[in-house]
């Protein structure tokens, strides 16, 4: 495979970017949900 470095960096950016954002959303969601009653969380 040629240009491996660029391909690997590209894929790391995609998976890492999406993963980091998802993790941040989930963590913040867990933190905020502890401060709110269930009626403010209609999906529960």
């Amino acid at each position: 495979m040629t240009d491996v470095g660029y391909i690997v960096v590209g894929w790391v950016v995609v998976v890492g970017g999406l993963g980091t954002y998802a993790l941040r959303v989930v963590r913040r969601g867990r933190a905020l949900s502890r401060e709110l009653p269930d009626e403010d969380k209609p999906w529960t």
Partner: protein
Amino acid sequence: MKPMARGRVGTGTPATRVLGVVTLAAIAVLGLFALVLSPADELQGDSVRLLYVHVPAASLAYLSFAMSAMASALYLWPRTRRPGWDRLAGVTAEIGVLFTGIVLITGMLWGKVSWGAYWTWDARLTSTALLFVLYVGYLAVRRMPAAVDVRAKRSAVVGLVAIIDVPIVHWAVDWWQGQHPQSTILHLHPKISGLMAFSLFLGFVAGLLSFAWLLMHRYRLAVMEDALEAQWLDLAIEDRQREGTVPAAGAAAR
């Protein structure tokens, strides 16, 4: 102050957990096909493997910004005005910025391999960079302190202005002849086929699943952010009211 609730924690439900597992599986299968099973391109060599994430990310950025603009319009229209539309506009714009960032970085890497430079002032590249800046600005406007309704209306107007750049980005390759290639798949006779086309299809599937998962969780987070903001506002008003009565009572005592 409301009591600290101890019910369900987080933004997940059984349905989003299933969606999350399916999304991770789709990303793994995409990785297998895009990086291992699909062949190198005759012209571009192995750098074509960036196409399987670059193109779907661009499409999802368009989708996110289109949804944001639609939600903004629905918020501005008095008959359909609901806080949920404003929330959806903000959430989809944020996800769109994430996908646009991915498009820019993977595009720059691909450009370095194909053209020998990370960046050229090609119309597609420039308008995409502008799109990124416009929506970062939109997110900044959403954070500017103001009354909830004022902030929502202001953001909706900015969102409707920013969306103008999306068709410019899309048709830039047709309107101005630059270095960026034209559409790979939106032709009567697509330029790729076989395992390469299937890998690209998997890229769209994995991208859409990721988008749906992120949207659901981020929207629920926004619901909680708004509820907390309303709670803080109630507390601030109560404090102000108390501050207003305390000196009066003190003065009466003197």
